Structure formats: C-alpha cells, structure tokens
C-alpha cells in the first residue's frame, strides 16, 4: 500500500441529468502537488467527489491509495484529508469538540501541530461552529485535515473565500506537507496564481473533459504569444501548435502551444515580440480552443 499511487483514475465517466464527465484520466504521484483548474461547472467537484468515493463512477476505474473507490472508501479515508469550500462543521458543537472527535478517530493526530495551526489560522477551540464565518469554517476544516498529517490531501477550492493573509498561511502549510515526499496534494482552484506557484502538475478541465494535463514548467515553457508585423493583406505562415490568431491590418498575434526557438527562426524578421503567458492566459486559451474543437 505504501508504494501505490495516491490517485489513479482511468476512463472515468459519470452522468447527471444536465452534465456528464467523459473519459477522465487523472494520475497523482507521491510527492506531487496537482492543481485542477476549470471554469464553474466544468466537473472539478465531481472529479474530487469521485476520488473521495462520495460518488460512484458509471464507467472506468478509480483507485485512491491503492483502494478501489467507492467500495473501499472507509479504508481509504483513513489516510485522506478532505476539505471543500462549501463544507461546514456541525453547528451545535465547538471547534474544540470537532478537534477531539477527529483526534479520537485518527491515531496520527498531532495535538501540538493542531495548536500551532490554531494560532496560524487565528482560531480558538471554544468558538462554536455556528459562530464561524465562511472563511473561518474553511480554515477550521483545513486545520482538522492537516493536523492528522494524512498521506493524501484532496482540497476543493480551499482558498476561495479566504483573505490574502489567510491564503498565505494555508499555502505555507500546504508546502510544509510537501516536505515529505510520500505525501501528495490534489487541489482545485480558481486562483491560477496560486496554482502556478505551488503546483508541480496542472490539469485543465472544461465541460466534463480533460483539456490538458502537464508539468507546470512545460505549460509555461511551451505557450507563447508571438507578435508579428506583416505586409498588409498577407497571412502568417502555418506553425505547429497554433491555438489562435488575431490580427488587424499589419499587426498579428499568434498564440502557440508548442513554442521553441526554431519557431522564431522560421518566422524571421517579422517577429516584433514574444511574450510568455501566465497560467491564467494559458488556461483561457486552452479552454477556448477546446470548445471550438468540440463545436459540431
């Protein structure tokens, strides 16, 4: 069990009335942080719930920490810390009660670490769950998950709704988790800046399909926006990996996903500038291309 991949999903399909997940492949290796990025309704939460065994796939294979899901979910969840942005604690109880509950169920609970997290996240055990704001609910849920030192963390938009200071605290704790190369994190987020910064690999999802999945570095290295000045009326040459082309008059911009230096040589003196793209720009361009390709 200690050598199995934290998450392995192959050909996973799941249908709902108005939405379907198709042929999803996702692999998370130990020691890795993977970011799941997608527009609202793309299927990020569905993917995460399938990984947690809260939903059963219609087709395909889901294995988490070596356990087939959802059958073995009770076993798997011993080693998984799950936090979702819309998750709430039980309202009639205090944070301290929740801490004792979790500590009694998980032998790896680290009380000292839990105490430091209380101070980092500015929470008090005596606070009743009902009195916590949305952001505090998320921080509390993260505390309960982190203090158990689980092998796998599955987080559904953990920083949404947090102020910048809290976000920084959370990311800092997540990176502490990565000091251990046997642990792994899957987290979905809208915040592409955070994803760009701390994720080793990124998977883009749109409308129930994986659009792209790669190392963060490779994404950032292969995508470029190239500005060209051409003679009016002429079209730029076809280049491999062309995603989009915009132009007015003599100025054109090419968005490419397979950039390398030889491309510049090919385009020659027409090149006015080459810009790297932020993950957000890459994400939007990927999704736009994907949607156009799928248009009947």
């Amino acid at each position, binding site marked *: 069990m200690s050598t199995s991949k934290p998450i392995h999903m192959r050909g996973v399909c799941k249908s709902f009335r108005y939405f379907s997940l198709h042929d999803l492949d996702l692999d998370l290796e130990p020691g890795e942080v993977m970011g799941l990025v997608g527009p609202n309704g793309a299927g990020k939460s569905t993917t995460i719930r399938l990984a*947690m065994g*809260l939903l*059963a796939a219609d087709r395909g294979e889901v294995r988490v920490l070596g356990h087939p899901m959802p059958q073995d979910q009770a076993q798997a969840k011993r080693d998984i810390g799950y936090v979702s942005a819309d*998750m709430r*604690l039980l309202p009639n109880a205090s944070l301290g009660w929740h801490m004792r509950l979790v500590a*009694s*169920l*998980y032998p790896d609970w680290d009380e000292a670490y839990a105490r430091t997290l209380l101070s980092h996240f500015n929470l008090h055990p005596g606070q009743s769950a009902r009195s916590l704001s949305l952001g505090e609910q998320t921080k509390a*849920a993260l505390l309960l998950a982190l203090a158990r030192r689980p092998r796998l963390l599955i987080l559904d938009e953990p920083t949404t709704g947090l102020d910048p200071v809290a976000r920084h605290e959370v990311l800092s704790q997540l990176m502490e988790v990565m000091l251990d190369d046997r642990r792994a994190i899957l987290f979905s987020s809208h915040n592409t800046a955070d994803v760009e910064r701390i994720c080793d690999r990124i998977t883009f999802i749109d409308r129930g399909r994986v659009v792209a999945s790669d190392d963060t570095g490779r994404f950032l290295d292969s995508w470029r926006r190239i500005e060209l000045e051409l003679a009016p009326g002429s079209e730029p040459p076809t280049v491999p990996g062309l995603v989009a082309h915009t132009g007015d008059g003599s100025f054109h911009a090419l968005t490419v996903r397979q950039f390398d230096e030889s491309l510049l040589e090919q385009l020659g003196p027409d090149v006015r500038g080459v810009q790297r793209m932020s993950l957000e720009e890459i994400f939007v361009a990927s999704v736009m291309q994907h949607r156009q390709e799928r248009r009947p």
Partner: protein
Amino acid sequence: MNPVTRTLIAKELYLHRWTMLGMAVAAALAAGLCAFGRLAFNVGAIAWITAVIAGGVMLAIYGVGQERRDNSLQFVLSLPISPRQYVLAKLAGLLLAYLLPWLVAAGSAALLVVLSTAIPDGMLAYVAVLSGFLLANFGVVLAGALLVRSEGAMTAVIIVTNMGVSIFMFVVGALPGIRDHLGDPAPVWNTTILAVLLAEALVLASALLLPLLSAARRRDFL
C-alpha cells in the same frame, strides 16, 4: 462495533442533548399535571403526547435533514466510514437519542397511573400500547427522513404519521380487549394488548431495516 460508528452514535447524542432533555422534562411535567383532576388530566395527556411526538419529529428532521441542508454532511462523510456505516450510525444514534427521553416519558406516565389514586391501574396496559405506538411511529418518521429526499415528501410523512396517532387512539382505544379494561383496578395483559405490542414491534423493526437495505444499494452519497 467499529469505533467510528460508536463515535458517530455518541455524536448524535451530544448534538441532540437539548432536544432530548426538553422532551423528557416536558413529558414528565405533563404526566405530573395529569394527577390534578379531570381537566388537568386531559390537558396533561395531550401535552404528554405532543411532547413525545414533537421530540421525535425534531430528532428526525434535524438529525437527518439538517446535515444535508447546512453542508456539514461533507464533513461527516470525510470521516473513514462507508455509506452503510453512516446510515447505521444515524439510525442507532437517533433511535437511542429518542429512546432515552421516551423511557422517561413512558416511565412518568406509568408512575402517574400507579401512584395516582384517581386513575385506575387498568390504564397501565393502555399506557404501554400507547408508548409502544409512539416509539414505532418514531421509527417510521426516522426511516422516512432517511429514505426521502424532498422536503415535500418529508412533510407528507409527518402529516400521515400524526394522523396515525389520532387513528390509533380511536381505533385501538375502542378495541374490546382494551376498552373494557381501562377502568380495572389492575392492568390486564390479555392477548389483544400483546398482539398490539407485537404489531408495534414489527413496524418498528421493519421501519429501521428499510433504510439500511436501501443504503446498501445506493451508490452515490451526495
């Protein structure tokens, strides 16, 4: 039993401690009220039945539906349990949460009958079947809350079971085996009484079994 299931049952008891206490105290006071004359008896009896029913409905609705409504279901499901264990813990926990104040209520009613000189001890048998009915009733309401997803259907379940109480009191109260002995100085445990108690036990058992079987087949939790 799995330590997780045990912990979850304890959690139900903890979370519903005020409802439990409220139901027990209200029922005990209502029973006490019954000792003070005819009018007090009628008021007290109605109050007693109301307390016992209301406690059950609150436990069923808040115990089951609330977790889904206030999004704390995800927190519970993130614990190392399977859907079947979750339903089992819910059933056992809420049943236990109801049983304790129910024992107080049934006990205070029984005590009232035994101690009060104005109330014939023959009523004891009726107290037994009435209490048994209310327990079985709770089982049905609880099963309904676990099986049913829409608020509308849940409301229907509650209305129907409440109607059941009135029907029970008229129908069962009119059965010769029971009606004839209400005024007796000592309780009569005849076959009618025992048959009713048995029927109540069967209803309770099937009501509790149904959600377990259904949960075992359901594959999606959320």
